């Protein structure tokens, strides 16, 4: 048994746990039952609740279909950190990250085939999301659109785009809005972002950290957040505390998914991993996504979600920024627009 084996023998299912509570469980795979396969899904922060629901659903489907038990293990964290872990050898069967760029980074090291985005429908992004504003109840600062964010005395909470995938979408959405203003161009967009960041008092490393800073620590007047995070904050911190504001324009965020070829081929889990990702496109999974405030691709799930997802103008990274590689290079790499515009408040 190699070392991963030793570690995974420490892995405890609910069942094995109650059976072996007193001892140090070196229960091993036997405790998991015969014919149980494992899958590791390495994902980013805001998907925890959705994947917890989907994993249960998928395990149920898989059992009826193949009569086999499957245990989905998950790891959540900032999208960039998660991609880095996979590159450094974390044995992920599938990655479900915040943006295509992070999966591209893994593909660049040869762990995933370069054409991964074409292997699944809709750019390998089974659900989408967008960036919205979360403001305090009654919207005391009267924030309606991106332009209001740079007013004096408005505190904006957003994470650091260097470490947070969500923050990169925020940055690009603001950029797209500024460029579409009368007389707008790259220079005016950069000036707009530099004024926006001047209003940012706390720059957390991840989307979840920013939500906590805004909701729990009561910092700032507006949180730039994933649509699903904004709804979740509603539920977690109380509906009477916040309001969601949809700006006039935002970005179509496409969190992408991929099978990590090198790892599934070595572990022999390709069929399972592919089924797991394809399952995300089934009506059941799409309905689950909508339930967790991800915009489903499936038209029917979209229709039954009713007015849960207001329509607004959404720009895509491909059309507006020439794809993620280009967007990353121009905006977020060292010396990019984020580094240049960042003139923090003194």
């Amino acid at each position, binding site marked *: 048994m*190699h070392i991963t084996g030793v570690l995974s023998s*420490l892995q405890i299912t609910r069942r094995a746990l109650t059976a072996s509570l007193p001892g140090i469980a070196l229960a091993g795979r036997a405790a998991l039952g015969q014919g149980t396969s494992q899958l590791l899904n390495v994902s980013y922060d805001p998907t925890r609740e959705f994947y917890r629901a989907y994993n249960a659903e998928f395990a149920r489907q898989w059992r009826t279909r193949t009569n086999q038990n499957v245990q989905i293990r998950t790891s*959540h964290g900032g999208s960039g950190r998660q991609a880095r*872990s996979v*590159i*450094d050898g974390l044995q992920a069967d599938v990655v479900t990250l915040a943006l295509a760029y992070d999966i591209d980074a893994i593909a660049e090291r040869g762990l995933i085939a370069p054409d991964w985005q074409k292997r699944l429908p809709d750019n390998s992004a089974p659900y989408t999301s967008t960036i919205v504003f979360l403001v305090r109840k009654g919207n005391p600062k009267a924030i309606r659109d991106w332009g209001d964010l740079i007013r004096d005395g408005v505190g904006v909470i957003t994470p650091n785009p260097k470490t947070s995938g969500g923050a990169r979408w925020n940055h690009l959405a603001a950029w797209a809005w500024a460029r579409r203003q009368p007389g707008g161009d790259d220079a005016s967009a950069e000036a707009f972002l530099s004024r926006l960041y001047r209003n940012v008092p706390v720059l957390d490393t991840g989307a979840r950290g920013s939500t906590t800073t805004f909701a729990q620590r009561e910092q700032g007047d507006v949180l730039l957040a994933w649509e699903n995070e904004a709804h979740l904050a509603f539920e977690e911190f109380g509906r009477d505390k916040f309001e969601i504001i949809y700006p006039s324009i935002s970005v179509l965020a496409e969190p992408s998914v991929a099978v990590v070829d090198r790892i599934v081929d070595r572990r022999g889990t390709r069929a399972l991993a592919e089924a797991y990702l394809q399952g995300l496109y089934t009506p059941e999974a799409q309905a689950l996504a909508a339930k967790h405030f991800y915009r489903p691709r499936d038209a029917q799930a979209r229709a039954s979600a009713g007015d849960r997802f207001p329509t607004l103008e959404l720009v895509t990274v491909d059309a507006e920024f020439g794809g993620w590689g280009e967007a990353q290079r121009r905006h977020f790499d060292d010396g990019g627009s984020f580094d240049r515009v960042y003139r923090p408040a003194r």
Partner: protein
Amino acid sequence: MNTDRRENLLARRSAILAAILVGVLFLLLPLLAVFVEALRRGLPPALEAIADPDAIASIRLTLLVAAIAVPVNTIGGVAAAWCITKFDFPGRGAMLAFIELPFSVSPVISGLVWVLLFGAQGWFGPWLQERDIQIIFALPGLVLATVFVTFPFVARTLVPLMQEQGRSAEEAAATLGASGWQTFLRVTLPDIRWALLSGVLLCNARAMGEFGAVSVVSGHIRGETNTMPLHVEILYNEYQFVGAFAVAALLALLALVTLGAKAVLERYSGMLGAML
């Protein structure tokens, strides 16, 4: 003279008051905050958070990591202390400086170095991958990062004491024909055992609480490679504040028990030492 004494008393009183103020506001309040947050909704939700399978897995993993890291550093620390204090050789000072080095290394770097060595892109990465050996994002990586961070404690505790005690007792024993082991077990160990235990306990407290270094090498797989401090972070990120602070409180309690044991040792070490 009289006013002098009164002033003196006043100064002493205000010093005591100031010290208590610092102690309460600066040191005790954070601990109190942890417990208050943990018990915000009463005891049952806090206990529930600790009884969660993922939490139990993280407790187990934390204890396991400490159970490996602490003995490694104890053996190494005792050997180093013996070597440095009982012999003269060039480079002794440098050796001591290197032993203390991990103290001044950022925990983040303490994690990063193992990624540079054993990560898939690291020095030994390809070799390990060919042989299907997983070091980082698994137990060995967590242990290595922890060993690095807690490296100096035992040696740092023993060296000054053993230096003070000199070598004459051991030399006498050796001259009388005792073997090295006998000399160590019968002559040296009784003199250093309390300090050794203290060092081990401190090493243990730090090993259980380390965050930055293990965060870099963990991989954050739920119920598998999350130690308690990492589990706290995860719960916090899931907006389960009560749960996060409950696990944090348990972790603090574990550390406090360790420190309590150390304090008791220090109080009674003289007495017990005389008795035994």
